[in-house]
């Protein structure tokens, strides 16, 4: 059970699973959950765009989930930092530091373009840079897992 949990989600179904787990790990009435959704920007000829084409839908989806948690009485806040490409993990780790979080939760893989990647770049980077324990939520069972 934890008092201050930071959960990083990209708005994928896998992120939903992590959100459910986060809720079950909150320790009680004083416990607070911070949902972080990092928007990565990439620059091109036409200007700067979010890296994910469906960024708006993702953000809306997470926002409604956060509202659902609030309605259920969970003390939750929703942060949506925007960064240039490169470091969602660093951004998440810094937020966790500033909030003195006692746990960061992240899905093992979200919207990865490379489906063969068994552990996403954000979680693996987080494991390297975070100063507090990181909980990695695995893919649901129906997804095929590669053998060792």
């Amino acid at each position, binding site marked *: *059970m934890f008092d201050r949990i930071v959960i990083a989600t990209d708005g994928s179904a896998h992120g939903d699973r992590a959100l459910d*787990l986060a809720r*079950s*790990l909150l*320790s009680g009435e004083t416990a607070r959950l911070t949902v972080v959704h990092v928007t990565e920007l990439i620059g091109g000829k036409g200007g700067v765009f979010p890296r994910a084409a469906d960024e708006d839908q993702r953000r809306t989806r997470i926002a409604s989930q956060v509202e659902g948690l609030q309605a259920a009485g969970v003390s939750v806040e929703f942060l949506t930092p925007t960064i240039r490409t490169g470091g969602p993990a660093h951004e998440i780790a810094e937020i966790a530091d500033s909030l003195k979080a*006692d*746990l960061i939760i992240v899905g*093992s893989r979200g919207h990865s373009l490379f489906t063969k990647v*068994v*552990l996403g770049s954000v*979680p*693996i980077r987080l*494991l*390297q*840079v*975070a*100063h*507090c*324990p*990181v*909980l*990695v*939520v*695995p893919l649901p*069972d129906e997804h095929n*897992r590669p053998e*060792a």
Partner: protein
Amino acid sequence: MTTASALIVVGVDGTPESDVALAFAIDEATRCRDSLEVVTAWETETSLTSVDLVYGVAEFPTEAQAQQQAERRQQEALERVLGGRPHSIVIATQVVRGQPGPVLVEAARKARLLVVGTRALGPVRAAILGSVSRYCARHAEGPLVVVPATAEPEDYQVVSTRE
């Protein structure tokens, strides 16, 4: 989510970083009234690189000796972390021959959480991640908590939930 018989599995190898992970696991088990399984893996291959062997002051350990050494490392880690304080959790121990990663993933198959430490430290921290934590992150079937060695051990004081 938390059931009466929920299980937390923690990997312990006797290093300072595994002590931090053990402290975290004991703290979490205590607060959730889960039972704890402390798992230590050993391999004869790793013993070959030990300092004692390099300097020729020790014989090659037999399998029974390696098992005993692992059991002793595990017990000493538990004594260090619990520090004689009373606790209210059921602690099971397991010492298994094999590579730590696969041993832990197997032991955690029915666990609520698998907890491991990581020795990622210092300026090169970004370049390395403990091989065990990396293996578990890739292969664990359930939630995995990776506790960095920089986590403050005093954050995880053993709290007795019973008189």
